[in-house]
Structure formats: structure tokens, C-alpha cells
């Protein structure tokens, strides 16, 4: 679909009446009713899905798990940030699906102690093996992003790095399945196609400008830097390296795609069973993301009018898992600006204007 002429008079930044994405041509635009093209894309996908195609079911997940159960030292590798989604995913894997997981937590230097402490408590309580990986490797890249004034978004770049690391560890320990805590909003909507590929490997309209900036940044600043010359430029390259270099056949799945409901179902469980609680500070509210998200979100909003979290929340709204008002409240960027100064000083760069 292309943008109609009527959309040209709509002020940039006007929010879609249904989701939380702003009018941001040429990728995102509102129609005469004030509904965005991403919402229409979603509706079309739902409407044209084959009639006998059902959503993902928990038994589908178990089918995959049971193909590998007990055949390796570890049944799966769980990525754990200490947040509600990854904590619940690990809890399900261990207690509900009765698997033997290896747990992996990474820290590029910007993960608050509070989150790490939560992860530590969880693995201890569940009695599972844990790899904690702390490295300054990404710091120069993050600094470069700020200094070059590139519009590249930090999170997708960072995810290339940590997904590669995850595959490397999966290969190292011969683990067949990587379990993430990705929510239903971090897929294209519970479609069965997520089973066939890494869910983060997607290129829908709402990511187009961000992907373009990533590509440019990679070519201009990353490949030319000897330190990062082997750094993957996109998720396809990550998968290629994982397959060719690490010989990993691991697939990435999240139990949240297969179980009905959302945080309102699993947060009470991990609170009760693991003593888990929301961290004091993170963006968006009620998440457990690294400190760079404060910066990444402010920059993304400046450069595009929305962040990756707006995209995720918009999906959750369309799936009927959260109201628009709730999403807007969670996405509010009313946090203490001192946090940003703190991050700049950690990166060793002067603050930028994020107005």
C-alpha cells in the first residue's frame, strides 16, 4: 500500500487512533480515519490467513521441545535479563516443561545491578547452571553511535551482538534450542511462520527506516573499524555465522508465543514462586531493560518519532493484550534526565540534544 495524498496534510507525529505509532511518512502514515497503515497491514494479515490456520498452542511448543529432550547435556539455552518475560520463560522451561536449561545473561556494561541481582536470585532459586558474560566489547560501538550522530538505533545493533553470542554459547555447549522471553508483541502476531526462522529477523514497514540507518551505519562505521570488522551487519548474517562458523542448528523460541494471555498471567506466578519484582528503574515502565534504553528511546523518538517499544506495544494493542491508554502510560518518557547524563559520561561522550 502506498500513502494516499490525503495523508500529506496530517502533521508528523499525530498518533494512530488505534495503536501508538505516529504519522511518520513514508513508512508510517495515517488514513482519513486516523488509523495507521501498520494497523491495516495487521488486519489484512489476519483476514487473509488461511481459515484452518490456528494460533500457536502450548502443545506445539512441547512438540518441538520433545524432539530434543534429554538428548543433550542441556535441553535448551535460556536468555535471562532478569525481567519478567525472560524470568517467566525460564520458570516455564524448568518447572512447567521439566527441561534442563543452561542460562545465559550478558552485560555490556550498562545493565543495572538490580537486574543482575534479580537474574542471580532466579537461577539460584531454580538451581540451574548459569553463564554470566560481562564484556566492554560493545562500548566503543555505542560511543560511535552517539559521536557520529548516526540515526542508527542502539537496540537492533546490540541485538546482533548478543544473538551472535547466544548462538556461540549454544554451539559451545551443544544446546539445540534457544529460549528467549520475547513477548507476543515481539513477533508478527502468533503466526506459524515464526517457527521456521528467528523471530527477530523481520523487515516490516515500521522497521524500514531504522533498518536502513542500521545498514548505513554498518557499512560506514563498523566494517571500516578493525575492531568490528567481523561484526554481522544484520540478522541474516548472524544466522549465517551461527550456522557456518559455530555449526549451530539451534532454533530460537519463546514460550510466550504459545501460551495464552500475557504478563497478567505470569507475573503473579514468578512473584510467588521466585520472589521476583519489578525493578525500580527501566524503560519502558514495568520492563527490565538495560540503561541504554533510556538513551536509545529518546534518540529514536527524536529521529523517527517512535521507538522499538512503540512498535512492540502497538502489536500488543492489536492483539488485544493491552489497552492503548496503558501502552501510552508505559511509554511515557518522563524519566529523570540525569539518567541520560550518567550514560553519556559512562560512554565518555558529551551529551547531545534530544529535544
Amino acid at each position: 500500500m502506498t500513502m494516499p495524498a490525503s495523508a500529506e496534510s496530517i502533521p508528523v507525529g499525530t498518533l494512530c487512533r488505534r495503536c501508538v505509532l505516529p504519522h511518520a511518512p513514508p513508512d508510517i502514515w495515517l488514513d482519513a480515519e486516523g488509523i495507521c497503515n501498520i494497523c491495516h497491514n495487521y488486519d489484512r494479515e489476519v483476514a487473509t490467513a488461511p481459515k484452518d490456520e490456528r494460533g500457536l498452542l502450548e502443545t506445539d511448543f512441547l512438540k518441538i521441545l520433545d524432539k530434543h529432550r534429554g538428548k543433550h547435556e542441556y535441553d535448551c539455552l535460556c536468555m535471562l535479563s532478569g525481567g519478567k518475560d525472560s524470568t517467566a520463560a525460564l520458570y516455564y522451561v524448568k518447572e512447567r516443561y521439566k527441561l534442563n536449561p543452561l542460562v545465559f545473561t550478558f552485560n555490556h556494561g550498562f545493565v543495572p545491578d538490580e537486574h543482575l541481582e534479580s537474574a542471580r536470585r532466579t537461577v539460584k532459586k531454580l538451581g540451574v547452571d548459569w553463564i554470566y558474560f560481562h564484556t566492554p566489547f560493545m562500548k566503543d560501538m555505542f560511543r560511535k553511535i552517539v559521536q557520529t550522530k548516526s540515526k542508527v538505533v542502539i537496540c537492533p545493533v546490540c541485538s546482533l551482538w548478543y544473538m551472535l553470542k547466544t548462538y556461540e554459547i549454544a554451539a559451545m555447549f551443544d544446546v539445540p534450542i534457544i529460549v528467549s522471553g520475547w513477548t507476543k508483541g515481539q513477533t508478527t502476531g502468533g503466526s506459524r511462520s515464526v517457527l521456521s526462522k528467528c523471530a527477530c529477523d523481520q523487515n516490516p514497514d515500521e522497521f524500514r527506516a531504522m533498518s536502513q540507518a542500521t545498514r548505513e551505519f554498518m557499512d560506514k562505521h563498523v566494517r571500516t573499524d578493525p575492531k568490528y570488522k567481523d561484526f554481522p551487519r544484520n540478522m541474516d548474517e548472524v544466522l549465517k555465522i551461527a550456522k557456518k562458523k559455530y555449526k549451530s542448528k539451534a532454533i530460537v523460541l519463546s514460550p510466550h508465543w504459545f501460551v495464552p494471555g500475557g504478563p497478567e498471567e505470569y507475573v503473579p506466578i514468578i512473584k510467588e514462586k521466585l520472589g521476583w519484582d519489578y525493578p525500580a528503574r527501566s524503560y519502558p515502565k514495568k520492563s527490565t531493560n538495560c540503561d541504554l534504553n533510556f538513551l536509545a528511546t529518546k534518540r529514536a523518538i527524536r529521529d523517527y518519532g517512535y521507538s522499538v517499544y512503540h512498535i512492540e506495544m502497538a502489536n500488543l494493542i492489536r492483539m488485544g493484550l493491552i489497552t492503548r491508554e496503558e501502552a501510552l502510560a508505559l511509554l511515557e518518557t518522563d524519566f529523570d534526565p540525569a539518567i541520560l547524563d550518567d550514560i553519556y559520561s559512562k560512554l565518555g561522550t558529551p551529551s547531545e540534544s534530544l529535544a
Partner: protein
Amino acid sequence: MIVLGISCYYHDGSAAIIRDGEIVAAAQEERFDREKYSPAFPIQAINFCLQQAGVTIYDVDEVAFYEKMYLKFERTIISHLIGWPFTFRNFLDTMPLWLKDRLAVSFAVEDELSFKKPVRYIKHHLSHAASAFLVSPFEEAAIMTVDGVGEYACATWGSGHGTRIDIRQEMHYPHSLGLLYSIFTAFLGFRVFTGEGKVMALAEFGEPDYLDKFRQIIDLRPDGSFRLDTRYFSFNKGETMHNKRFEELFGPPRPPGPDFTDRHYAIAASLQRMTEEIVLTMARHVHEQTGLNKLCLAGGVSLNVTANSRIREEGPFDDLFIQPAAGDAGAALGAASYVYHALSGRPRGPVMHSAALGPEYKDRAIEVLLRNSGARYRRLERDELLAETARRIADNQVVGWFQGRSEFGPRALGNRSILANPANPDMKDHLNRVVKHREPFRPFGASVLRERVGDYFEFDGDSPFMLLVARIRPDKLGSIPAVTHVNHTSRIQTVTPEHNGIYYDLIAEYYRQTGMPMVLNTSFNKKEPIVNTPDEALACFNDSGMDCLVMNQFLVERNDR
């Protein structure tokens, strides 16, 4: 101990789960895959049951499957009900075909469910018997299972004591009531499987003038078994299941369409009367043989409300329990309870007082839906909600009513219902115009306060699952036209505070406001399976002419008015 019961591959696939003696959940696959009477392996219903029980398949101790003998053969019969090229002998030769379905079940259970232990196969009629007796209030009872319309249908009877079930007699194909009903369903121009209920409704408009002719083709014996006179049926060849000789008796078959003559009404009425006579004869025989005073009923014929009521009123039994999911859906529940109680020797569990065993949705999920879809709605306190809803029904509004867990079995019993004013003489047509679109001859049921049922009906006792009819008191005739059948009866559901919760409170409030202790209750759907989720309820509401929709505590108004 946790037992998962499954029925499928015929029609109305379903799943049920029993944990520590309690039926935790049960649901039909059609409510999830949205295909009416879906015969599919009930993978979505199974996922729901497991999640409702808070377990996964790894926690399940046994999987029980209702075994459907001669399955392939039945499919052949049904698909050839209009053209019937088979011989009974040939059928016996091809019998082992049913094994294929047994294998398919084992395969699906292992492959789709990752359940590695062997499946427990429970005979079909035993599953039906268990679905009624083991969840009934009776420690001891006679049991009759008369299998459903369009089925291979062996009727069986026996007795239950504690957790033991003894089947004493089976009656076999082709001399079966289900098949007889299906032959006439096809003859009267309806579709087998879905048309039987319509034939039952049609029957009320005629006199049983053909009863003698039925007696000519059916030899009913004192034990309720019977023989079809095969000279009237083309068992061997031909385009129809009946033959020339049959048409000499009954006339030509009715072509599909909206036109009926007195002959059609009379044939339907005679068939219905014959059916009632057969089950009544059988009931008397079963009573005589068992000496027991209570009766449990299951199997598709137990959805025949008039036959049930005649057993209740004219039969020799003091008390009656009918499984609400009387058809094959209930067999999943029966197979599970048979494994749990009869085979594993565990004591009887709680009585099945309610069919509300399906999914329920939290206020939050409903409010998120309403808010994001831009619906015009209000959240009301319980008292206000009841008062407002009752007022609107009294005001002749058609109200969508969505509360708590969806019902197991074919009837909506006040959790996924459309409600209306039973006293309005135009309501039946109005309902059909704005939402139901049913044949005008099909009646609507009533939900009535249990303690007030005698005010309007010559009826005393319980009909919790709307599987009985009651004669309207002569002094009340004409006062509830929207739920009155031509023969001055109504199909009724008796409602109690213990088992119906907010639905009881609503009707009590309606009674307080209007002096009428009942509402018209029809299932919440148009042509599709009964709505299951709030999304489906809202879509059905928006897509119909219903006046308002009540979901949990939310009152939803139409956007287009």
C-alpha cells in the same frame, strides 16, 4: 490423578479433564476452530483443558479415548444416506476398518500431545453410560444410552452401582433408532446430522397419523428393541435408502426448501411419537430388569426433549439424570470418568450440577477488547447491571449475555445466551429477524426460576440442562407466547442460585420487576458455533440486530444507534 478424555473423528470432537475426581474442564473443538460439530482431533480443546487445570501433558496420568466402533462404516452410511449402496454382510466383512481410527488416535496422542503412554480405549456406549451415571447424584441407577441421530447407534442399557457399570444388553445396527431418525430426516428434505432437531420441531405441527404405517415397517418388541422391515429399504442398491414400497406408504420424499404440507408434519409427528414409544418401552423394560428407581440417560437421542419428558412423566422411574453433553462430545467426559473412577477404583466425585466447564475471560481481557475496539460501554456494579439488564429485557430489547465459563454440550444455559422477553408475542419473529435466522417453526426455550416453575408449568423438579419440556398451566396459556410450542409446552431450564450464580440473580431481578419468573434463552450465535471468546461475542453482536451486550460487568451499547 489426572485423566484427559478425548472424542473425535466422528463429529463433535471434544476434550475433558478430571483431576482428583473433579471435572476441571470440558469443551468442544467447534468452539475453538469455529466449525460446527468439528470432528477434528480436539487439539485446541485439549490445550484449553490442560491450561485450565494448570498442568501440561507431562502431568497427565492417563489419556482416555471413546472408542467408536465401525467408524468408517458409519461414515459410509451417512454419506450414502441419500444413496445407499451397501449390504449388511459386506459391512461385517469390512469391520476391521475401525482399527485405522484407533491407530490415528494413538498417533495423534503421541505425536500432537507428546503423550507416550498407551491410550485407554473405552467402549463407546460405556463412555456414554459413564458420562451420565458417574457424574449423576445417584449411587445406584439404571442406565440407558440411545445413540445419536445419524450414528451407527447401538442402544444399550445396564446398571450402575457406586463406580461400577454393568452393561446388560446392546441393540445393534441396522435396527437402530438413530438410523431410523436419520432416514426420515433425509426423507423430509433435511440434512442428516443437523436436521434432526428440525424434524423434532416440525413434529409438533402435525398429528401422528402415520403411526400405523410406522408400525408396519417397525416391529417394536417388549424390551424396546425393534426390527426394521428390510423390504421397505433399499439396503443393496439405489439412490435412496428407502424404496418404492416405502414411498407407497409414505409418499414421495420432500425436496429441500421452506415448503411443508400436512403430510410432512404428520410423518414427522409420527416419527417423533414412534421414537418416544421406543424409548419409553425400553425404559419400562430396563426398570423391570434392574429393579432400580433412578435412571441415567446419555447418547444423542437424549437430546430429544419430548422423549425425555415422556420417560420422566410416564416412565417407571422416580428420578432422572441426563448428561447435558448427551452426544459424542460428552463421551470424552465419560471416557475420562470411566478411567478415573471405574478402572482406577477411585471414589465418585462431585455431582455435575453445571455444564459451565469451558473457558472464561477476565474483566481485564474484556475491557481491553472493548476499549481498543472503540465500543460504547459502561462498567456497572452488580446490582445496577442486573437492574438495567432486566429492565431492557422487559423493554423488549434483545440482550447478548456473556458470563463466566462457556457451556459444555449443545445448549446455552445462561453463560453464552441471547435473552429476551418471553411474554412478547412478536419476539420469536423479531429474534429470527435480527439475529437467529432460524426456520420459523423452531421454538425457543425458557430459563425459569426453579422455585417458581410451578407458577407457569405443570412441572415440579429440576431441568438444569434444558433437556425437558413442560406443559404450560391452562391458566397461563397465552402469557408466554415467545417460548410456547404449538402443543402448549415449553422447553425449560430450571435455574438455581447454587448452580447458576449471576444468571439466577438476573432472572430473579426480572421477576421482581415484571412478575415474570423467566426469560427467553437461546444460544449466543447466528449460524456459527456458539460464541466462545469476548471477541466472538462482540463480533456477533455487531453483526446482528441485538440491542445490547452484557459481558461480565460491562454493558455494551450499539455504536450505530
